[in-house]
């Protein structure tokens, strides 16, 4: 059964790009959200196998969303996707419990390999 992924990003074009890459590579997009508040609710409802999560978003940013999702499910697999290639934000993501991260702009292959690796990792 294809793994189900929840895409969270405030930019519709990035959600579309991720949807395209993931579905072309055999994954199912369980849902899409434009901010952290929606993402927490969707996570409860859909219980996806993995979440791709943008960091800079309105309403609730990606780091707070990550914390909220991990409170719901401590084994949640979350890949942070961010244009901020800075040690502080990346280390904070990993310390909070993110499985991995991808820096924007990204290559499609990087998305696929990171998702695959995260899904194979032990929660």
């Amino acid at each position, binding site marked *: 059964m294809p793994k189900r992924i929840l895409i969270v990003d*405030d930019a*519709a*074009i990035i959600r579309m*790009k991720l949807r395209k890459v993931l579905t072309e590579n055999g994954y199912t997009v369980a849902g899409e959200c434009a901010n952290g508040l929606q993402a927490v609710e969707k996570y409860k409802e859909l219980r996806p196998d993995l979440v791709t999560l943008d960091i*800079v978003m309105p309403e609730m940013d990606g780091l707070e969303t990550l914390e909220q999702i991990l409170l719901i499910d401590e084994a949640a697999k979350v890949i942070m996707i961010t244009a*901020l*290639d800075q040690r502080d934000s990346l280390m904070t993501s990993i310390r909070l419990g993110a499985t991995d991260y991808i820096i924007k*702009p990204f290559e499609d292959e990087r998305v696929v390999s990171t998702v695959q690796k995260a899904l194979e990792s032990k929660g």
Partner: protein
Amino acid sequence: MDKTHKVDKAIELIARISIDRASQSFSKIIKSGAKIELESIFYSDVTALTEEAISLKDEEVIGAFVNLAGDAPFRFLFYVPVPASFLLADLILKNEPGTTKELDEYAKSAVQELGNILASSISNTFAKDFDIKLKVTPPVLVTDLASILLQEYIINAASGKDRVLVIKSAFKVIKFGLETQMYIVPTAESERILSYLENFL
């Protein structure tokens, strides 16, 4: 070389490196001979700048405003004529140019996401090379006449000051003849970066 001259050179160096990184990110997204070049760095009276903005060609543009908050706060703006946002959406989504025909959510978010990625590239340069931490806020999209958009941006960035430092860059997608502008203006607290550099040099 006197201290003021050294500070000016340092600003130019930081701007060049930042714009260069932003240009690399831009090329990676667009993949069509895209580049950003530093055009000029200058101090200007806010009145003169707003008057210059009024003289801009009256075309409808869509712009992304981003605040870079932190050790040396900046306001960032990049804008394109509305039809150019259709092209940017097609290039990002790897669609045939001409596929997007209206200012739909993808055209809008192409500008939004470019604003985010370009401003983040600048923030990354400040953090990595100069240890200046800047937090990027989510881009705010505005559609208006170029003259109005630019005036609003300058007045906001100046926040009451008479003079501002302007870092102006040209934003080009050569193959499709798209050329527009990207601006970085330190906010009224720009003295902080200048005094930071003065202490550093």
